[in-house]
Every structure is written in structure tokens, then in C-alpha cells.
């Protein structure tokens, strides 16, 4: 490719990126405006008097910190459980020899196709009967169950490419099956595990519908509810609404910025092998 085509391509991408990010730029811009400035005719507006109060409202009335801590707790436990279960299931499906293997594998993979929304109603009834609604576990269990099928799928694909010689030499050295899985296979599958962790993070961190069905206690609510808190009482205070949306988006973007290389690597490994 010549230098000039490269420049054209670069400029083209820059324009597309700006267009694509425009909604977010607009959101940030308007989060600094007072509500009556919203109706001016300009598409973007330099805030003459930046409304930091909007962010204070967002932090305080959006109950940002409490919901953030809940999100961290629910998401990290879910990720931990998903990794352990996907790893052990993946190993059992690729290496272990047992009769019901194909049936169970199909059943787990069905989880990728069955929409959670279709199981939402009976789950609500079951969780209510078991006393799981309005508890952290009431979110952690379904989040893990939803994440495990994809995690298992990614890991089985990856594990098939690991040579069995690894395990053979470990057995010669006297390692038992648990040491093999957690100390030899787990580190070898690290790139796939990162993909599992990141996809699980993105799904759970931003999940809303299960959380809003299973939770009614304010003390347990997760980050998306910060935004929902502004739907009623602040419905005309757009500046604060926009500020809370900006605040809510920041943690996920930061995590993504830190792990973006691993996401691509993980997906690439998956796509090439799958």
C-alpha cells in the first residue's frame, strides 16, 4: 500500500471513529450543561459555566459508591466461580473418559442458545421460593449459570490444542488429577481464561434485566441502577442524568483499556481454532 492511500485510510478511520464516538462525546459535553441549555440549537456546546453540581448529584443521588461496590462484589465472585466451573467442565469434556460425556456437553452448550429471558419467569418463582431474591447469591448464581456455557465452549476449544504430553509427564512426576488441572492446565489455558474473564465481566457488570427482576432491596442494587434512579425524581434534570451515565461508563471503559489487548488475542485464538 502506498503512503498516500495509507493516509487516506487513516483520515477515513479517524472520521468514522469520531462519528462512532459522537454519542459519547455529546453525553460528556451535555453532562456539564444546566438543563435549560439543552434546548439551544447547537449540536455541541462549550459549557460557559460547567455544572459540576451535576456530578455531585450523580454521585450522591445515584448512590454511585454503594452500587459500585455491589457490582464489584457480584461480578468478581461470578467471574471466580465461572472460571473454576468452566475449567473443570472443559477438562472433563475434553480429556476425561466417561459415558454421559456427549449428553452433558450438549446440555451445557444449549445454555448458549437458550435466552435467559425465557427462563426469567420461572427463575423468579424458584428464587423467591428458595429465598434467593434480594440476596447477592440471587444474582451470582444465575450470572454464573449464564456465563459457564460460553466459558466451557471457549475452554474446550482451547484445551483440545494442548498436547497430552504435558499431562503425561506430570503423571510420571506423581501429580494427581487436581494438580494437573489447576497447576498445569490452568496456566496453559491462560489466554482463553482471560477471554472468559473479560466476556463474563462485560456481561455481568452491565446486566440489568435479571438484577431488576430479582432485586428490590436498595442496599443490594448494582451499578446500572444508578442511572435508573434518575428516571423518576430527576426526569427533567438532564444534566445530572447525563453525569450519572458518564460516571457509570467509566469503570468498564477503564477495565477495557487495561485488558483490550487480551480481549483481541483471546477472540483471535478462539476464531482461528474454532
Amino acid at each position, binding site marked *: 500500500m502506498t503512503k498516500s492511500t495509507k493516509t487516506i485510510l487513516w483520515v477515513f478511520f479517524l472520521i468514522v471513529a469520531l462519528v462512532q464516538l459522537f454519542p459519547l462525546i455529546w453525553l460528556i459535553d451535555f453532562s456539564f450543561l444546566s438543563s435549560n441549555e439543552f434546548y439551544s440549537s447547537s449540536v455541541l456546546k462549550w459549557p460557559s459555566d460547567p455544572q459540576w453540581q451535576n456530578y455531585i448529584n450523580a454521585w450522591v443521588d445515584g448512590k454511585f459508591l454503594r452500587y459500585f461496590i455491589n457490582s464489584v462484589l457480584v461480578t468478581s465472585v461470578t467471574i471466580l466461580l465461572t472460571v473454576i466451573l468452566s475449567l473443570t467442565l472443559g477438562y472433563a469434556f475434553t480429556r476425561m473418559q466417561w459415558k454421559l460425556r456427549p449428553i452433558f456437553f450438549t446440555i451445557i452448550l444449549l445454555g448458549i442458545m437458550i435466552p435467559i429471558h425465557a427462563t426469567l419467569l420461572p427463575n423468579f418463582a424458584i428464587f423467591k421460593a428458595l429465598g434467593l431474591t434480594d440476596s447477592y447469591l440471587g444474582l451470582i448464581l444465575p450470572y454464573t449459570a449464564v456465563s459457564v456455557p460460553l466459558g466451557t465452549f471457549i475452554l474446550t476449544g482451547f484445551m483440545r490444542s494442548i498436547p497430552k504430553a504435558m499431562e503425561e509427564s506430570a503423571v510420571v512426576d506423581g501429580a*494427581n488429577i487436581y494438580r494437573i488441572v489447576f497447576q498445569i492446565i490452568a496456566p496453559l489455558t491462560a489466554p482463553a481464561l482471560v477471554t472468559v474473564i473479560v466476556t463474563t465481566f462485560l456481561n455481568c457488570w452491565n446486566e440489568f434485566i435479571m438484577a431488576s427482576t430479582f432485586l428490590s432491596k436498595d442496599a443490594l442494587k448494582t451499578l446500572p441502577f444508578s442511572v435508573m434512579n434518575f428516571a423518576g425524581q430527576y426526569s427533567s434534570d438532564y444534566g445530572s442524568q447525563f453525569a450519572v451515565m458518564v460516571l457509570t461508563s467509566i469503570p468498564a471503559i477503564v477495565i477495557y483499556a487495561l485488558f483490550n489487548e487480551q480481549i483481541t488475542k483471546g477472540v483471535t485464538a478462539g476464531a482461528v481454532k474454532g
Partner: protein
Amino acid sequence: MQKVFNNKMAIFLFVFPGILLFSLTFLVPIVLSAYYSFRDTLSPGTPSAFIGFANYTELLFHDSRFWLALRNAVLLGLGFILIQHPIAIFFAIMLDRLGGKAEKWFRTIFFIPCVISVVVISKMWLSLLDPTFGAFNKMLDSLGLGFLKHAWLGDSSTALISMLFILIWAGFGWGLLFYYAGLKGIPDDLYEAASLDGASGFRLHWRITVPLLSPVITVQITLAMITALKQMETVFLTTNGGPGDSTQFLAVYLYNKAFSASQYGYANAISILFIIVCLLATYLSNKLTRSDATEF
């Protein structure tokens, strides 16, 4: 070695927790859903009578909303396949050719909408498309296209297409990433060989990239249909199916039937049909696309 792989205790410990959890949140609920779908339950736990297939016959033969929701899913899925995916493939190819630091940077930027919470996406687009202060209409105004100004999500003739637009914006990064990953798996020497044969530019990609990407495309088409069928949160938080059912989807419909209309039994019948439709769609799109996939 065989002894290690046959360790029954280990197999049990590895498989049982996962299967138990999966059964608790998927299999048992489906069975329970099937049970409720044959009853005239108003809300979970209330007494109800067995009514046979009445919910199902009502749904399949007298409920136009059900069919509308299905039609909308198909239209949305087609929108993904015909608009989002070609754009994603085009950008993946261009990104791959750009190379260097810029490739990495743009790839990162294009994915940003994918990490943003669905609640934020919904509320943000609701504002962007707002008829009075939304940026979209203001932009049309400043371009001298003020006559196109519209209540985009509030008008039944534009609501579904606006929804498609929002979902393409939000999901574009994933599609791009998958195709990009697929491209990275195509060996360079194939391109060299083809360009020696005189193919170049568009023809080169049409003849080589697209066929070699076909395994990825197959999976992506299936995923697009499923994504369209599963559509819920964005719709729920923006239009809630309206105006006039123009953005109705099965998941939104069943949710509202269960929790707003107090027709829990009926909603469960929708759930069961919903699951059947999803499994059928996966099976069909797999079968249709696999047959002409190129092996390499």
C-alpha cells in the same frame, strides 16, 4: 495415564457443580415454565386451573402480537446480516491493511460502545433521538435537512429502523472483532499467489477473503439471528415495544405479560415457544449456511 483420565471421583467433582447450577437455573425453570404454560396462572404462587393447550392455541392462532414480535426479530436479524455484517467485514479488511500502531488504536476505539452498559446506551439514545433537544434532529437542522426532523423512536414507521440503528451502533465492535480475528487466521501467501494471478483490490477480497472467512461468517449469521430474537433490554428501556407494537419482541412481550398484565401462565407459554424458536433458528441457520461453506 488411562487411570488418571478415568478417575470417577474427579469426573464427578468436575462435572456435578456445573451441571447442578445449570439445572437449577435452566432445566428446572424450563420444566416449571412448561407446567405453568398449561395453566391460567395470574402470578406465580396463585391458585390456577389446568387449561390444556388453550394458551398455545390463543398465541398461535389469535395473538397477532406474537407474530409481530417474531416478524420484528426476523427483520432485525436481516438488518444485522445485510447492514451490520458487511460493514464489519469491510472495516476488518481495511483495519488489517492499515497496520502498525493505528490499527491497534482504531480497533480499540471501535470497540468502546460494546463495553458500555445497556442502561446507559438506552437512555443515551433516547436522548439523542429526542424530538426536542436530541442531537440527531439538531444535526439535521444544521445541515438544512430540517424537514426530516422526527420523533424517531416515537413514530411507529421509524421506531424499528431506529432500534436497528442503535443496536448496530452498540454491537458493531463485536462483529468487527470477530471478522478481524478471522482475517488474522488467513495465511498471507494466499494473497500473494492471487495477486500474482492478476487479482487485486475488491476482486482479491471477494475471491479470497470472503470465501475464507465463511466459517466465521456462518457462525456470525447464526449469532445475528439469535441476537435479534433475544432482543430485550434496549427495547425494554427505550420504547417498551411501542409505539403500537412496532418494536415488539418476544422477550419484552413475555416480560410485560408476566409482570404488568398479570398473565403469568400465558407468559410462560410465550417462554416455551420462545425457546423452541431459538433452538429452531440455531438449527436452521446452521444447516442453511454450513452446506455452502468453503473448507480450507
